[in-house]
Structures are given as C-alpha cells and as structure tokens.
C-alpha cells in the first residue's frame, strides 16, 4: 500500500512538472506570436483568414436571428415617427427632383465639353455588395467581417463604402469572407483633403469614434464643419469619397465626425476602382515602349 502511495506521489510530481513546463512553453508561444504578428504579418494574416473563412458560414447563420431582433426593435421605434418622417421625405423628394433636373442639364453639358476637349474618362468602377456578418471590433481593434471574398472578386485594399460615406478598406480576403478595417481602427491611415481649402492631411484612427486629422500643413486652414474627403494620394482610394466633417479643433488635435453610422451598418459596397488595371496598363505600355 505504501509503495502504491509513493508511486502515486511520484506520478503527481511528474504531472506537476509537465504542467509547469507546458505553461512555460505556452507563455513563450504567446510572446513569439506577438513578435510574429509585429514582424511578419503574412503568416498571421493567412491563419486569420483561414479561421474566419471556416467560421463565416456559422457566424452568418447566427447573425440572421440577431438581425431580425434588431430589425424588429428598429421598426417599432420608427413606427412612432412615421408621420413626421413622411412629411420630411416629401419635402426632401421635391428638393431632390429639382437637383435631378439640374444634374441632367449639367450631365448633358459635361458630355459636350468632354467631346470638345477629348477628355479621357476615368476607368469604370465595379461594386460588390456584401453583408456585414460579424462586428469583430472591441476596445483594441475596429473591424467587420463581410460575407464576400476572393470568390466574389474582393481584393485586399478595396475601398468599402455605404450611402453615407467611406467605411474602411479590405484588410484580408478569404475565399468567402473578408475583413474590413474601419477608418476608426488604430492601424488605419488614409490620405485625405479638406474639401473647401484642398489642404492635404492624413486621417488616422485611434480606436475612438472620431479619428484624428494628422500631418496638416502649418498654414492649412481648417474650421469646424469642413467636409473631409479622400484625396486619392498613395493610390489606395480614388479621390472625392466623402468621409466626415471636422467636429473639434484644439491646440493638439483636430477630430473628424464620420458620416457612416457604425451601429446601422448592414450592407456595404466594396468598390473596385480598377486602379490596379491602370497600373497594369502603364506597365504594358512601358514594355511596348522598350
């Protein structure tokens, strides 16, 4: 019996040592992962894409009942204001009809002027509409997962918009899912313009609701209420996509209130402006020239 107890004690000791060793290995593994994520994003990205792709079908199914619940709540709330909303919409419709006729006139004029100047039109854009199936953001990262991926033509770097304005860009693409990095994420940097003064700046997310306007020129003038749009520099996005308006200015920082409403996002449009196609054309032109 004593012998047996001694044997058990030894076993217990061995398992405690193994447990401690495993803890050490796992702690080291965590630090290695942190370094790996910092140094080389490709492997981390591939694994992340694989995992989200694997779970995307399941998450999409779970997102549907959640959407129904939030729809019911929103519909009930909207029902109370339906009459006032209707009056507002009629007024808006009248205004928009006037704008429509103005736009038609301008369009016709524009075509004529383009013909005169032999203007080369910008490449055609194509849209892919995706459903937001997961809001993977939190206090440390702001991103969404959409149910469209490589199979639907989505590529890394594509701009993501809604009717309101810019949402972010595609950060990772899996076969059937993609990760959208929001403009509010701490890793997001977008070249922008102050629309009224054409002053260049960079819109930098910092994980808060209102991103910062950085690298504004010293003489650049900004005032509260100025519209901020993409500048099209660095080739990531086309120019002129609406982002938001300047909401606060103080000595240290300028903040921007976004047009997009994060809690209302359901469908997003992923926009391919064919910038890569232009680059390929330039490349092939060069080769022909050589």
């Amino acid at each position, binding site marked *: 019996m004593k012998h047996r107890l001694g044997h058990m004690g030894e076993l217990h000791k061995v398992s405690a040592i193994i447990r401690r060793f495993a*803890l050490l290995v*796992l702690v080291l593994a965590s630090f290695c992962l942190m370094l790996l994520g910092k140094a080389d994003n490709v492997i981390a990205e591939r694994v992340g894409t694989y995992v989200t792709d694997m779970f995307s079908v399941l998450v999409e199914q779970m997102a549907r009942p959640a959407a129904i619940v939030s729809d019911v709540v929103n519909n009930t709330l909207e029902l109370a204001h339906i009459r006032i909303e209707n009056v507002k919409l009629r007024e808006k419709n009248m205004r928009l009809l006037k704008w429509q006729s103005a736009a038609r006139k301008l369009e016709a004029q524009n075509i004529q002027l383009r013909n005169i100047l032999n203007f080369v039109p910008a490449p055609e854009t194509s849209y892919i509409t995706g459903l937001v199936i997961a809001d993977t953001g939190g206090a440390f990262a702001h991103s969404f997962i959409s149910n469209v991926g490589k199979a639907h033509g989505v590529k890394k770097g594509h701009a993501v918009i809604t009717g309101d304005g810019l949402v972010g860009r595609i950060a990772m693409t899996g076969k059937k899912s993609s990760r959208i990095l929001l403009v509010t994420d701490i890793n997001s940097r977008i070249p922008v313009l102050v629309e009224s003064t054409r002053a260049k700046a960079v819109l930098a997310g910092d994980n808060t609701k209102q991103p910062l306007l950085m690298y504004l020129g010293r003489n650049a003038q900004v005032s509260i209420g100025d519209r901020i749009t993409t500048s099209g520099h660095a080739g990531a996005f086309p120019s002129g996509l609406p982002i938001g308006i300047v909401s606060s200015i103080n000595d240290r920082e300028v903040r921007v209130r976004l047009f997009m409403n994060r809690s209302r996002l359901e469908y997003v449009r992923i926009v391919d402006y064919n910038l890569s196609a232009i680059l390929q054309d330039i490349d092939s032109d060069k080769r022909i020239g050589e």
Partner: protein
Amino acid sequence: MKPTFLHRLALFSRRLVPMEITILLLLISILPLRIPEYSLIKPAWVMISVFYWSIHRPDLFGQGSAFSAGLLLDLFEGSPLGVNALIFLMIYTLVLTQRRFFIGKPFGVSWWGFSMVAAAAMFGQWFLVSLIYGQITPIKIIAFSYLFTVGLYPVVGWICAKTQSSVLNEV
C-alpha cells in the same frame, strides 16, 4: 460492465462542453448587434467563461484551452496576435492558485474575485496592445468595457453554472 463505445463518446463530448461554451460566447461576442456604442465598449464575454471554468472545472478546461480560446479571439478580432492568449493563460494560472478560496463560497465572492482579476487582465491587455502598437490606446474605452464586463458576469456565470449542473454533473 464495460462502457459501450457510444457511452464513451457521449462522455468525451461532455468533457468538451466548457470549451464549446467558450467558443459559443466568442461567436455571440462578434454578432453584429447594431446597438449604438455597443461595439466600442464591448464586454469581454470570453474572459468571463475562462475565469468561470478555471475555478469550477480546471480538469476539463486546462492551460491549452485557455491559450487556444485567447488565440482564437485574437484571430477573430484582428487584435495583436498572442495578447489574449497570454492574458487568458495568466488568468487561468492565477485563478488556479486561488481556487480553494472561491469554491463553495457565495456568488458575491466570485463576482468580487472576477472584478479584481478582470481589472488586472484588462490593464495587462491595454499595456501589451499599447506596447505593440507603439502608441497609447485610449484607456477610457477600456474602463467602460471593464464595467460592462463586470456587470455581465452574473448573466454569463449563471449560464455556465446551469450548464455545469445539468450536463457536467456526472463527468
């Protein structure tokens, strides 16, 4: 009587319940609920589960489980890889040493314990993330998220406790 294959399979699948609940909470945490401000101060659903199972069933939810739950969360959230994995591992190790203190005590004691552990864990997360990004991430949001998480503990804790008493009694 020797247990049949099916019996053993059922037993094995029950042993996975703590990890399954953790993954389920992870999936719930990323549902697009479209509630204003929710996504900014989202509570740490998975952390509650890790804390609960580390106290109540560390035999079914080991170091590996805590580590993989964290890693899975990192991959899903797109937050710096390894941070949640390390933090959850630390929670597990810390809670395991204090386990006897929590077992059999009233619910308020474990709630208080969780509020302490979560504060340390979220501060640790904030510190590591700021270090990795090379810039200080806003701590105010983390504070709100912490309060939300502590407030959610009774709900998630209750779900875990119900599951434990109904499914894991014989395991």
